[in-house]
């Protein structure tokens, strides 16, 4: 067996759940491998210390709850408890998540609207600027009847 395989079997070795041959092989490996010796010491400590001698006891009132539920009287109480549990554990986080998502949605929408307004006002400024820079002023000097002159007259007509 390789080191890795042996390491995996240490707990079963401690619980004496391996065959004679496997146990002998692991014993031999432990004599040579310091790492596995350290690991088995740690494992054995935790595994044996936590031997489950201690049994836990239910609350003395548990039978009352059970008999009430069996009689159907606890249905209301249990329902209230379930609703409370649902609100505390499911509805509240879900509501928080919904508020966050809604906030994000409103934020994105508002952001888009502000950006669109800004863009359209910028476009208007640019269009006015470009008109003044490249538009009528440059065509005004052209003689009427020429192509440039006709275009300038047309733009002036459209602006009016």
């Amino acid at each position, binding site marked *: 067996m390789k080191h890795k395989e042996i390491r995996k079997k240490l707990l079963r070795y401690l619980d004496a759940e391996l065959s004679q041959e496997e146990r002998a092989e692991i014993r031999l490996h432990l004599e040579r491998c310091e790492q596995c010796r350290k690991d088995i010491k740690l*494992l054995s400590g935790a595994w044996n210390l936590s031997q489950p001698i201690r049994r836990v006891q239910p609350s003395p009132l548990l039978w009352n709850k059970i008999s009430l539920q069996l009689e159907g009287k606890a249905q209301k109480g249990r329902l209230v408890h379930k609703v409370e549990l649902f609100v505390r554990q499911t509805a509240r986080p879900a509501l928080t998540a919904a508020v966050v998502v809604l906030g994000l949605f409103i934020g994105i929408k508002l952001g888009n609207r502000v950006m669109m307004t800004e863009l359209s006002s910028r476009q208007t400024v640019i269009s006015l600027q470009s008109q003044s820079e490249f538009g009528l002023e440059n065509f005004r000097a052209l003689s009427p009847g020429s192509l440039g002159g006709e275009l300038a007259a047309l733009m002036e007509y459209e602006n009016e």
Partner: protein
Amino acid sequence: MKESELIEKIKGDDGTALRTFYEIYKDMVYNVCYRMLNNRQDAEDATQDVFVKAIRSVHRFRGNAKLSTWLYRIAVNTGLNYTRRKKIVAWLSLDFLVGKDEYFPDNAQAGPDLELEKNESEALVQQAIQSLPPRQRTAVILQRYEELSYKEIAEVMKTSLSAVESLLHHAKDNLTEKLTALLK
């Protein structure tokens, strides 16, 4: 009172028999639920469910298995359902974001050194057991804490003896790896 007699009386809704049934099996059921859920309150809720389910469906108990085996089966299934529900609730509650340690036993108390060390060891072993896949976890709990034989585990889990052997084999190998990592 004989087991068959007790069952008949439970079927007849005899109040004293119901109480006797509860008194006999309450520790067994509660401990299985506690080991599966690692939390006293959840274990108590699950125990309540187990007894209510058992009493309400006792007419379906045919006596093929021992009453304790049948109850173990209900307890294990209820425990597994609660675990699944807890996982969903934890996910919805976003507990994983705050790194809540759900495995630390809630009854660990500071005491003398050995007691403290025992509690720490128990917490680590519990943490490692809780991280096993459900069927492996169930087999380990039934073997380690309830001291059931392979045959009894097979009956509770409705599986074959060789399947139990294989489950425990893999569970122990996984536990070795997990515990070694936790202990370092």
